């Protein structure tokens, strides 16, 4: 019957044909007529009367806002995300709709459902694509309670396909050894390359192959970049380590070979999205070695796709290269590359230092200062579990990845906020004898994570949680404002400012019996760190609320929509 109904509604079946079809499935004439009658209004509704149509010209966000107005929507239950900028731009200068902002997708859905239960109106919810899994539980509640609602999520951009985006499927293979013929041919290509670069991916850490990766990179002095992955898969202070892979690499110049070991290909920059050819130099060759096969040779023309456990692959590649060259030849290739890479990475470090210098002693603090102070006091084998904005590259200030040294875990590649507090507890449970520092953003910890502190307190979990508090979804605002839409033009931060209410995270911890403090400058930070380390040594969790600066366009704005629920009352109840 479902198929018949679909065909009828889609216009592929006449009313008479629908009736006949229903009778053929066993419906009586009367029953079939009743069914057809009940579907008639839906079928007719597909033809919109011309008097209800009116022309509209504008961008997609404005069109959505106009549809909501036509549907007399008063409130948008909202959870933040960069792609929602066009909708916010569309309502930034019109007071007829109000945002009801939740800090986490699941809460946005439950608020919307409460509104539906009380008002009987269909609520409209806007959340972020990666947040869909978070809201599923409350959608189930709404479904069980028969509460209807419209939930809109921006679709995944096409350029994430093949980079393990939400829709991609993983298929792991255990301990597959790479094909010797392919390894041999790939090694030949590596030996012949004039200007190669490595990308270090998360499969290196997963297979315990950091040592093999370092040995391979050092063998021919090949500089190493990283995918934006879950771990730091190459020692961050190594002179060959360049950091993120970027379009138009400055070093090595004239790139002719990319060797991706165990990772995905990084997302393109804005400039490269306009012109994808900018992402990779013309004629560059690619070797991609992974155990996960989904995105091999999927995004770029790839000369060698080597399927196998990367530890085996790295060992075999190293042996193959050594077998092709004399020690003298290896030295002749390696030495100048090592010197050039060391010079380049030293200049990069100097530029990072210089960039932070002017803001070093200010309050609110630059994020670099907080990380610098942490680096001074953390144990040599500390573990940092981070869920902070991608632009805060802690690996520039903290040495990770040395054998027996510090370890970086996070941010989750799922990017679904609300992960780090719980993940840090799991890490501590697994490594109770290593110091664990959890780096959280204020927006992230407000993503339904404060409840996890109950678990910290119950199980006396000695973790130092540092909240990098800029009272904002800083990255979201800067990306939305970069589009120069109405929010930017009118200096209206529609959704990213978190400073009202100004959350006191130390007090939130206190509600669970957890010690904590607030630091607005480096002096207060150093004092707070002493207390925090003492607390964790004593077997207790600690929350350090560190006030950091907002950056980028709109950073100085504290304006936010002045709508209040108290203000719409007609009675003081």
């Amino acid at each position, binding site marked *: 019957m479902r198929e018949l109904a679909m065909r009828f509604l889609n216009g592929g079946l006449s009313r008479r044909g629908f009736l006949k079809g229903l009778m053929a499935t066993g419906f009586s004439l009367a029953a079939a007529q009743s069914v057809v009658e009940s579907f008639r209004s839906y079928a007719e509704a597909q033809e919109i009367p011309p008097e209800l149509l009116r022309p509209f010209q504008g961008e997609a966000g404005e069109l959505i806002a106009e549809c909501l107005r036509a549907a007399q929507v008063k409130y948008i239950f909202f959870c933040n995300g960069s792609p929602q900028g066009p909708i916010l731009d569309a309502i930034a200068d019109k007071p007829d709709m109000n945002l009801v902002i939740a800090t986490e997708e699941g809460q946005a859905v439950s608020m919307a459902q409460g509104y539906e239960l009380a008002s009987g109106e269909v609520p409209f919810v806007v959340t972020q694509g990666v947040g869909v899994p978070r809201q599923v539980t409350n959608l189930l509640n709404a479904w069980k309670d028969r509460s209807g609602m419209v939930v809109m999520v921006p679709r995944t951009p096409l350029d994430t396909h093949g980079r393990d985006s939400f829709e991609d499927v993983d298929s792991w293979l255990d301990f597959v050894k790479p094909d010797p013929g392919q390894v041999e041919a790939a090694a030949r290509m590596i030996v012949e390359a004039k200007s190669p670069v490595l990308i270090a991916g998360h499969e290196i850490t997963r297979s315990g192959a950091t040592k093999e990766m370092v040995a391979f990179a050092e063998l021919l002095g090949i500089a190493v970049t990283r995918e934006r992955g879950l771990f730091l898969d190459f020692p961050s202070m190594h002179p060959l380590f360049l950091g993120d892979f970027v379009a138009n690499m400055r070093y090595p110049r004239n790139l002719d070979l990319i060797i991706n070991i165990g990772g995905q290909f990084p997302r393109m920059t804005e400039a490269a999205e*306009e012109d994808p050819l900018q992402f990779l130099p013309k004629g560059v060759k690619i070797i991609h070695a992974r155990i996960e096969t989904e995105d091999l040779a999927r995004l770029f023309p790839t000369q060698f796709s080597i399927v196998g456990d990367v530890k085996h692959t790295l060992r075999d590649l190293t042996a193959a290269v050594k077998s092709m060259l004399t020690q003298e030849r290896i030295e002749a290739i390696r030495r100048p590359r090592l010197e050039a890479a060391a010079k380049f990475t030293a200049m990069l470090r100097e530029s990072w230092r210089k*960039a932070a210098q002017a803001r070093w002693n200010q309050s609110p603090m630059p994020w670099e200062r907080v990380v610098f102070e942490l680096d001074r006091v953390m144990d040599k084998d500390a573990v940092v579990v981070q869920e902070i904005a991608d632009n805060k590259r802690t690996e520039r200030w903290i040495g990770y990845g040395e054998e027996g040294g510090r370890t970086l875990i996070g941010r989750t590649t799922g990017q679904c906020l609300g992960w780090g507090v719980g993940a840090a507890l799991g890490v501590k449970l697994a490594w109770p004898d290593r110091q664990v520092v959890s780096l959280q953003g204020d927006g992230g910890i407000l993503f339904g994570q404060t409840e996890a502190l109950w678990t910290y307190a119950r199980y006396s979990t000695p973790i130092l949680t540092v909240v990098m508090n800029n009272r904002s979804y800083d990255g979201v605002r800067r990306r939305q404002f970069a589009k120069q839409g109405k929010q930017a033009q009118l200096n209206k931060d529609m959704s990213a400012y978190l400073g009202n209410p100004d959350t006191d995270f130390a007090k939130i911890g206190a509600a669970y019996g957890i010690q904590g403090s607030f630091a607005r400058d480096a002096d207060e930070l150093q004092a707070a760190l002493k207390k925090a380390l003492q607390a964790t040594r004593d077997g207790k969790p600690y929350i350090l609320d560190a006030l950091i600066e907002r950056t980028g366009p709109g950073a100085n704005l504290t304006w936010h929509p002045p709508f209040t629920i108290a203000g719409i009352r007609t009675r003081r109840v």
Partner: protein
Amino acid sequence: MRLLFSLFLFSALVLFPAPGLWSGNHWVSLLPDGDGKQETQQLCGSCHNLQKTVLSRKTAQEWERTVYDMVARGAQIFPDEAEKIIKYLSQNFNSAKPAN
């Protein structure tokens, strides 16, 4: 009527395209000549198009903040190059210069 409208729309888009429709090269062409232009074009333009750059009007201090913010976010710009770019942007994209 429809044909006339299409022709009008086509002409309007060709003659008066919205800022978002300009290509990356258009924004580069709005960089005035001067010391630091090449660095701005190459080092800033390799990560993003220069629309926001040429449309912005900032003080020297604000440009310094912007450029160092980019470095902190991952732009591979060395200190001497950063100083050149800051000086160039401060001279050519300040409040005394009208936006194009």
